[in-house]
């Protein structure tokens, strides 16, 4: 039976890894994900897992070790943040194109410069095009459930792709939360025995990984990755269905909160979705029809589901905790692009917020909703691209 425990987000991730008991884990510390490996390393030292813990000299090597171990046929996991993820960048498309089911927790943190250790999504958004499935987690509980599901999604027939589970640095990673933990054997049973696809260690069926692939075949192999990640939507949903059947928690590609009759809505990732839900509860008491659309699966991008969820909304604010400097927020760009095919198009505005861990509170979110309401009243969209909470000359 599940039991409630008070833990930080990082403790939950490390505990989840202990329960899954991967074959190989590569570890390199970087704030705020350091604790994950620190706690997990203790489990290795205490003999609670059979994991081969590889301590490397950089994140570039961490991902390289993961790729090697995964090609060899092991269940492989790791965790990183920010600049560490950026240093892995070169290897990320290698993992996806070689179809290696690695599960990595990304504890989201801002990229330098200026140096900043706090939360934003510049790191995971920076590698959104690497062919990795990306799951976002509202809180530690969801991070726990996402990692368990990721361990199963990554190796499903036809998927065979790496999965990134994103968790907000410090806000979730270092805050203590009451989390319902499953029993070890329940987790083990759910993720199942790991069956590698074409392991290098299978000496009876030798294979070569990472061969040269020029103009004649490179595009076909990249299209295979695109096909796999596009069709992984249904596998993600099937795993969510199995998870619901087993443990009672419901997950989809998106999470609609009070969206049935909503006129104004905020779209957000990770922990800000939780704060937005709190604000929606306040607004609902005042008779304002507000809702929140949380994106759980950012890659593959659930365009159809988002279009369906936003079809009756009059004004939407997409919140991005990163910017694609020179254009707008990455989530906004995808959502506005998805809405181009909608029959009735709501006003869509973009807010860049919370970079480098700057707080977004109830007041800011409330003002965003109020902005949406007044744009409906005026019958014209508000300014499309906005930064919230930046001090500037007016």
């Amino acid at each position, binding site marked *: 039976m599940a039991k409630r425990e008070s833990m930080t987000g990082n403790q939950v991730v490390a505990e989840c890894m202990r329960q899954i008991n991967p074959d190989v884990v590569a570890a390199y510390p970087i704030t705020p994900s350091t604790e994950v490996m620190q706690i997990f390393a203790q489990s290795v030292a205490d003999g609670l897992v059979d994991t081969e813990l590889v301590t490397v000299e950089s994140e570039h090597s961490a991902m390289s070790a993961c790729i090697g171990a995964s090609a060899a046929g092991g269940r492989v996991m790791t965790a990183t943040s920010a600049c560490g993820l950026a240093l892995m960048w070169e290897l990320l498309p290698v993992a996806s194109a070689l179809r290696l089911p690695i599960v990595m927790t990304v504890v989201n943190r801002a990229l330098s410069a200026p140096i900043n250790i706090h939360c934003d999504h510049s790191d995971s958004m920076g590698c959104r095009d690497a062919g990795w499935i990306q799951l976002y987690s509202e809180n530690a509980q969801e991070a726990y459930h996402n990692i368990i599901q990721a361990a199963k999604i990554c190796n499903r027939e036809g998927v*065979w792709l790496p999965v990134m589970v994103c968790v907000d640095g410090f806000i979730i990673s270092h805050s203590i939360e009451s989390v319902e933990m499953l029993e070890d054997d329940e987790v083990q049973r759910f993720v199942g025995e790991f069956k590698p696809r074409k392991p290098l260690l299978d000496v009876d069926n030798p294979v070569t990984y990472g061969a040269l692939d020029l103009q004649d*075949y490179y595009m*076909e*192999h990249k299209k295979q990755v695109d096909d796999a990640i596009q069709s992984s939507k249904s596998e993600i949903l099937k795993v969510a269905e199995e998870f619901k059947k087993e443990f009672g928690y419901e997950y989809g590609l998106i999470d609609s909160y009070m969206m049935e009759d909503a006129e104004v809505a905020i779209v957000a990732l990770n922990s800000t979705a939780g704060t937005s839900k709190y604000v929606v509860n306040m607004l609902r008491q005042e008779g304002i029809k507000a809702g929140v659309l949380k994106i759980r699966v950012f890659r593959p991008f659930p365009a159809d589901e988002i279009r369906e969820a936003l079809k009756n909304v009059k004004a939407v604010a997409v919140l991005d905790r990163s910017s694609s400097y020179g254009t707008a927020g990455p989530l906004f760009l995808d959502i506005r692009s998805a809405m181009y095919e909608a029959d009735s198009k709501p006003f869509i505005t973009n807010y860049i917020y919370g970079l480098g861990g700057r707080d977004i509170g109830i007041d800011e979110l409330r003002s965003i909703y109020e902005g949406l309401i007044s744009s409906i009243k005026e019958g014209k969209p508000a300014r499309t691209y906005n930064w919230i909470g930046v001090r500037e000359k007016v």
Partner: protein
Amino acid sequence: MTLKNKEELPLGGLIEEAGNAAEYETGGWRTFRPVWDFEKCIQCLTCWIYCPDSCIIVEDEKVKGADLRFCKGCGVCANECPPKIRAITMEEEVKFKK
């Protein structure tokens, strides 16, 4: 050589059969091909030693020509053929494409 489509290719660009490089024909790059004059050839096998693509065909210790599936027309064989013999000439590939 017909190219396979994405459904027929191993996922991840894996090579699943050992020693299959022999199936990858590289003779398509050729502009010149070596032609032997076996009246002049003294069977010294110098061309066989020097061919960078190991494509000189030798049967019963005698040179029979080049395996054109892999010959890139580099001309090393013709160059290394002893000066007094000159049994190999490089001829333009287009002449054979009729």
